């Protein structure tokens, strides 16, 4: 397979395990996002692929050729990879054009660097120095520099988090288009689920050094592998219950399918705030408004529901903004509710 492959890669820092028997493949032309909280091992994985960390066990392949395994490792400069960091790491003592030409051989480098700069729309800024550019422009120079030597694999470490929120979406789309035109295998590290869903063909959700779930953004969002995966994409109300004799789970907010678990099993029921919908009086479950806030596109409304313990949060489309104390009826969108066996590791 052309592209990047990890085979049973394990990495320790002292006694702490950073990456735990990781198997992952990124095909040429594909964008895979490593998604997870800080410390989950995603950046270590990327640095292993780049050769910036020495591989301890397992193997890493680029275009079916081993670049690192127990027998040794190619240094980063021999791997034909492109790297992009959150801080871009432009060389401050070199002009923009020289930065882009840095990775090219002698001779034809200036023309090629100029072409690469033209591609990111900065053809006229070649003589500027990095500090004279805006954050978005610096990001594009970093992209041009990494792409100019035509890498087979692009490795990106939080490449957009240095950017202003308004600029970020635009730069993401441009970057994606440019990456697609090169056909490189792209591994992108991020802690932002929305960014992962926007960029990735496939997402590898990591936790404590392991890939918890691997799949398309749609499958990760709609069919999370466990409660942690569900929570990572969106906050959720958690209700603890047991599977009834009929295989179903009864909660104060409604009845759900028991997900095939045996009767009597303790379960966590995750209900996303968007799953709660106001309905006409007499339908659904009665609830009393505790607090409400208009947040823009949504309103955040917190309800007291008999038997549910703590308040239940719901996201409701405006213009509905009920006053505290108001009585309402709520029904559940079962597509955004998940039932998992309660292993006692969720929030109390």
């Amino acid at each position, binding site marked *: 397979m052309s592209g990047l492959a990890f085979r049973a890669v394990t990495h320790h820092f002292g006694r702490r395990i950073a990456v735990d028997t990781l198997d992952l493949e990124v095909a040429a032309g594909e964008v895979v996002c490593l998604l997870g909280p800080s410390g989950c091992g995603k950046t270590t994985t990327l*640095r292993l692929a*780049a*050769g*910036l960390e020495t591989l301890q066990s397992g193997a890493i392949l680029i275009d079916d050729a081993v670049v690192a395994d127990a027998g040794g490792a190619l*240094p*980063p*400069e*021999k*791997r*034909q*990879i*492109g*790297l992009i*960091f959150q*801080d871009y*790491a432009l*060389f*401050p*003592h070199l002009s923009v054009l020289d930065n882009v030409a*840095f*990775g090219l051989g002698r001779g034809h480098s200036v023309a090629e660097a100029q072409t690469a700069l033209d591609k990111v729309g900065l053809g006229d800024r070649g003589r500027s120095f990095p500090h004279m550019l805006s954050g978005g422009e610096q990001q594009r120079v970093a992209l041009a*520099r*990494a792409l100019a*030597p035509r*890498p087979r694999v692009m*490795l990106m470490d939080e490449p957009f988090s240095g950017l202003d929120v308004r600029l970020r979406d635009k730069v993401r789309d441009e970057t994606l288009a440019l990456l697609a035109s090169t056909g490189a295998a792209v591994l992108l590290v991020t802690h932002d689920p929305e960014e992962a869903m926007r960029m990735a063909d496939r997402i590898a959700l990591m936790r404590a050094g392991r890939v918890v779930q691997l799949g398309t953004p749609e499958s990760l969002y709609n069919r999370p592998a466990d409660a942690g995966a569900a929570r990572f994409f969106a906050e959720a109300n958690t209700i603890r219950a047991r599977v009834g004799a009929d295989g179903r789970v009864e909660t104060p907010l409604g009845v759900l399918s028991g997900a095939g678990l045996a009767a009597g099993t303790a379960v966590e029921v995750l209900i996303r705030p968007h799953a709660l919908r106001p309905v006409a009086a007499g339908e659904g479950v009665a609830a009393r408004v505790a607090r409400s806030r208009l947040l823009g596109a949504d309103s955040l409304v917190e309800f007291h529901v008999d038997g549910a313990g703590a308040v239940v949060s719901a996201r409701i489309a405006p213009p509905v903004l009920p006053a505290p104390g108001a009585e309402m009826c709520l029904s559940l969108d079962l597509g955004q509710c998940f039932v998992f066996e309660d292993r006692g590791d969720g929030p109390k």
Partner: protein
Amino acid sequence: MAVGLALFFALPVVMVAAAALTPAGETWAHLSETVLPRYIVNTVWLMVGVGIGTAAIGTGTAWLVTMCEFPGRRLFEWALFLPMAVPAYVLAYAYTGLFDVAGPVQGLLRDLTGWSVRDYWFPDVRSLPGAIAMMVLVLYPYVYLITRAAFLEQSVCVLEMGRTLGCSPWGAFRRLGLPLARPAVVTGVSLALMEALGDFGTVQYFAVDTFTAGIFRTWLGLGDPVSAAHLAAMLLGAIGFLMVAERLARGRARFHHTTTRYRPLTRLSLSPLAGVGAWLACALPIALGFLVPATALGVWALGEEGMATGAFLTYTRNTLALAVPTAVLAVGLAVLLGYGRRLGLSAPGRAAVRIAAMGYAVPGAVIAVGILVPLSTFDNALDAWMREHFDISTGLLLSGTVGAVIFAYLVRFLAVAFNTVEAGLEKVTPNMDAAARSLGRGPLDTLRRVHLPMMRASLFTAGLLVFVDVMKELPATLMMRPFNFDTLAVKAHELASDERLAEAAMPSLAIVAVGVLPVILLSRAIATSRPGAAQGARG
């Protein structure tokens, strides 16, 4: 390789430490009965005096220029560094010349009063209190430098919080600012004390018997290397104690950065009378530590009894022959060690680099002993062997060569270059290394194309600092130089010791003049790199 290098430069220090474990001869027994108590008492008094003096002047002036507004404050802010350019022994020559019986001060006194020499008592500069005064005047900038930085960094928000909780401006300083700056004061004083412990020129010239003077005398006067090494080991122990104290103070200082916000200080404006007091408090150390001695030296150097130009050029050439190669080598080695460490070193490697970087704290006299003992042993063994087998005398092959002196300088000053180069390396973020490597450049190519161009200024500064330190260095040069090879510092010392102060003025002044360069660099670096400086300029 970096590990090997680092260990190589740690060797002399290890040699001296090991000497403490070898049994000493009769001389040592004799020394410890007769002069050792005096060495200890004098050294302790010197420490106490220098400690109190530098703490008072350094902290006081630092507080005045950071927290108060008075005429001349901006000038004092950097001028207070100036005495750093003057080696204590040069100051000693200048004040001896000024306050001597035949000097201008006593002369003026006699002219004014009509007394004769026997009619009055005048304090003797060449005494323990005199030595303390000389060292306080040139070493207080260490305390000033570090304490001022601490005041600038820590206190804006904390002090303002104190004010809202009901402290007066002075109360806020006394109850918050000063306690928070205490680790910085301790650090500065320990650095000043290390310098004072290592001082040789002043105490030797003033005939105050401290450890360094004792090492020199035992080595050359009694010709007893083992006892000299024992003294050196004791001195090393005292330095080690100070280093631990300094490390502890720094460790604590880390907790004191509770805020990352920096804002320009609102300075107290002083009443006219207090303003005059503040002005005097800042002007006096500068005048006494720099202006007066520099002027006196200048007048003598230009006078009839000044050194002949030809002789001066010879000594300058000798000095350059030592300082330039040392500076270049030190910077090269520092780059090698720093980059090696960055490429990833094992724990023992890091420890070795740390030990090699410790040399700066070790007095030159101690390093000289640490090098000369093994070298002369080797030379004598080789000489004996050659004589026995080939009937040829090789004499002293290694000791007393320029190479040996430069090695001693490198041991002592590698740390200066290393720290500066490290600071420069930090400007190159690890991500830049990674970017260069991923773009197909090997480690050496990356060093050449990315690190070195970005660190040019640091490399220059490192070289300059080593150059100036070598120019000032006295004890190691005196003990190790080739026969009849006089540097500016050595010649100044010899002439002053022969009471030919006017002739000593020219080389002394040259040392001070070159010493001013890094002071200027330092004050400029501080002005631009100060946290909050940019906001201050905008706001």
